[in-house]
């Protein structure tokens, strides 16, 4: 006798391409998984269909009888988006169309060649509530004030405040002095944050900063950034749902997951000529995949390079891709003096800098912000600090890449001599108390030394024979140190210089 039961067929399809689907059996095991679609033959029984976008999900029960063909299309999930896009439950026409208008009608002037648009908006149920933007200001790359973002200079419209101005191409910094409100975990001090924004010639960069219901000021870490040609502006109801797809892709990036399907990627990639940011996000999502489609990645990157050649995120994509593939050749790209906007891209560039010292320009904002990063969302955010490109290590040390490479690979150069000196002082005087060091670069390097020193007894046991700290430390190439600590080579060099010149007197 056979206990064979005719199987049931399940065909599922989501209304939005990037939604995740899972078919879960009565023992709570996942029997089928897909992004956008599932087609699967399964044993008859009780099941659950789970649809997920980022951390939002819902489930539905189904009963599948023997031989049944269960088909459900148009599966949807109410999503909330930061940019006002058609179809999202928190995108009101009263925000969508004013946004379009603001992107096309400048009310500020920051230069010529590109355009910068900042939209603060309520994204909760009470979309008319007042928005306090008094903690925000727009700065240039030297942290000089460009616009204090007074509401009276903005276009306001029912829970939305918009600034739009033609702008010189290049980098800008949007600062929120109270990104984190005082609470116990921040020791009763508000904590500010800076968001880098890049403006490319002939393009507008549009930053949507949400005013969330549970916070008193808008939050940079939940921002969405889009791009559009200056002549076109931003479209609320773009018909293709491309903007919603991007919002969902960003939601995936927030969780470090790539939930992008080929069809979604092709949608993103086809759209890159009207919104290159979508191509950047799509390519970054490819890099998050376990087995990236390198042909697709290279196609996207090449196209992006053609249309926005100076964009730091495009450079970051290129070098991150090389690092991921283990390609050791030096990159022929514009060096990064301004941080990429996507945090994953910035991290990738920092990692690559250990292989290609000088990729991140020494003393630049991209170099000095690296030790102050928050990692709270898909975008690069750092803790505000006093920045001056004039301080740091000697510029002459950084001019010649070959020289830097010699320095980081030879144990006999002045720089590695500094390391030896430093380490000798640790041997003599003990490891520094890293908790009192205020400069994060110095603290990270000192912390590494402290830990290495304190574990000497353990290491001795492993090695079998004790080596001198100095011998051991000087055999650590600076690029290894850079990779271990996660800072650009020039940041590590600067920290070593500071410690050797000032000792560990750099206290809080």
């Amino acid at each position, binding site marked *: 006798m056979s206990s064979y039961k005719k199987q049931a067929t399940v065909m599922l399809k989501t209304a939005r391409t990037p939604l995740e689907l899972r078919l879960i059996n009565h023992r709570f095991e996942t029997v089928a998984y897909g992004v956008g679609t599932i087609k699967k033959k399964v044993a*008859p029984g009780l099941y659950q269909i789970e649809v997920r976008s980022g951390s939002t999900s819902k489930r539905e029960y189904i009963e599948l009888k023997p031989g049944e063909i269960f088909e459900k299309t148009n599966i949807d999930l109410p999503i909330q988006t930061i940019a006002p896009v058609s179809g999202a439950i928190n995108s009101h026409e009263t925000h969508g169309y004013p946004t379009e208008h603001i992107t096309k009608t400048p009310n500020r002037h920051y230069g010529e060649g590109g355009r910068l648009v900042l939209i603060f908006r309520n994204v909760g149920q009470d979309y008319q509530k007042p928005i306090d933007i008094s903690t925000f200001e727009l700065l240039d790359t030297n942290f000089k004030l460009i616009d204090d973002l007074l509401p009276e200079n903005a276009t306001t419209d029912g829970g939305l405040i918009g600034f739009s101005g033609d702008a010189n191409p290049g980098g800008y910094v949007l600062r929120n002095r109270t990104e984190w409100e005082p609470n116990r975990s921040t020791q009763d001090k508000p904590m500010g944050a800076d968001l880098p924004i890049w403006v490319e010639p002939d393009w507008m960069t549009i930053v949507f900063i949400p005013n969330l219901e549970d916070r008193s000021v808008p939050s940079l870490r939940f921002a969405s950034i889009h791009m559009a040609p200056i002549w076109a502006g931003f479209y609320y109801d773009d018909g293709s749902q491309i903007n919603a797809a991007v919002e969902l892709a960003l939601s995936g990036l927030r969780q470090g997951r790539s939930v992008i399907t080929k069809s979604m990627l092709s949608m993103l990639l086809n759209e890159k000529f009207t919104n290159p940011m979508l191509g950047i996000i799509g390519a970054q999502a490819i890099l998050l995949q376990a087995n990236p489609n390198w042909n697709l990645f290279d196609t996207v990157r090449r196209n992006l390079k053609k249309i926005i050649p100076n964009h730091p995120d495009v450079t970051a994509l290129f070098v991150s891709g090389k690092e991921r593939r283990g390609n050791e050749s030096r990159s022929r790209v514009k060096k990064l003096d301004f941080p990429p906007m996507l945090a994953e891209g910035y991290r990738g560039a920092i990692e690559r800098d250990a292989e290609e010292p000088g990729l991140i320009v020494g003393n630049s904002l991209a170099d000095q912000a690296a030790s102050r990063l928050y990692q709270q969302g898909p975008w690069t955010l750092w803790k505000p600090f006093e920045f001056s490109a004039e301080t740091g290590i000697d510029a002459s040390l950084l001019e010649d890449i070959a020289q830097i490479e010699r320095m980081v690979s030879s144990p006999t150069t002045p720089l590695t001599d500094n390391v030896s000196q430093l380490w000798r002082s640790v041997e003599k005087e003990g490891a520094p108390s890293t908790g009192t060091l205020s400069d994060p670069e110095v603290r990270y390097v000192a912390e*590494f030394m402290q830990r290495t020193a*304190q574990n000497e007894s353990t290491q001795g046991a492993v090695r079998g024979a004790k080596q001198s700290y100095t011998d051991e430390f000087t055999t650590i190439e600076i690029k290894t140190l850079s990779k271990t600590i996660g800072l650009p080579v020039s940041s590590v060099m600067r920290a070593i210089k500071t410690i050797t010149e000032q000792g560990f007197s750099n206290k809080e």
Partner: protein
Amino acid sequence: MNKQHYALVIGIDRYPGISDLHSARKDAESFFNWLIDPKLGAVPRKNIRLITTDDAETPPGTPRRKAKPVRDQVEDALFELWDMCRTHITDEPADWFNSRLYVFGSGHGIAPNPQEAALLMANAGPDHYGKNFSYAKYLSWFQKAQFFHELVFFADFCRERIANAPLLGPTWTEINNHNGNLLTVRGLATYFGDLAFEEEPDDDDTVNPDELRGYFTKALLEGLNGQAIDPDTREINSQSLATYVTERVRILTKHRPKPQVPFFVAEPVTPTVTFRKNVPPHEAVAQRHTVTIIFPPDFAAEVVLLDGNLKKIDTHSAADGNWVVSLGNGLYRVAPTDGENTFANAGFFEIIGAERNVEL
């Protein structure tokens, strides 16, 4: 006893630089108790290092800098374990296949990147998030060193993306061995960037505060104690445990604005890591739960209860009142024997880890 099983168990309640927790230490102690139970974890006591907040060493009011435990304590304890195992395996190479390292951590945590889950040490705080114990980096070291055949890492802590927190791996010399394929299980309380929660006292104080746990630990221990039995094999393995813990935590945190979703990675997927074999049938029976099915007031017809394979479990007349049944974990459905199914959720309901009332 599993003589070549080793365990590092950490529970940190006191964080002067962040905020104190209530149940992390108890989480660790509960897991420790599971480990040393000869019928459960069966790990020799001498093979376990339990590191928890010591009230004498870190009393309330201790400044952040002086708070303990700190990372070096953890690394030293871990070193003792792998050194013990290495010494034994050198003499008895065949025992390598029976070796396992458990790492359990409960406290505050961060995840600067998607692969990471780093337990914050007691002396961590804003600007000091580098004081952590990086699961990914230590796991990677052990994967190369291959002192243990099986690596089982559980993390009951948040995985918040926090400032550029340095993740400095082991300071031991890198060791590469080639003993064979390793089995690795990572059970994390939450997805990258998300929060993990503790149980909270009831408003009416009916729950003993000492019995409160992190939701992940609660589900993990329930699963290891028997709820995660695979009914086909009568064993508790990494897959059945992952399924149970994930669903149970989802149910336990359903009341929260954003339910907690654990994240399990088992590499390779097969063969699985087995925590208990041949679980006695009476224990499996004990994993059934009392379920009270409550019918709508105006409903008095006959109903049938189906299991997940659409097999009829029993029938009942709603005119006789509530229906009390004993069911194991799974998905079920109640349907009228005649007519349309107008019950709440169309009569579907889930049972996982606890008794419940099902209001139709």
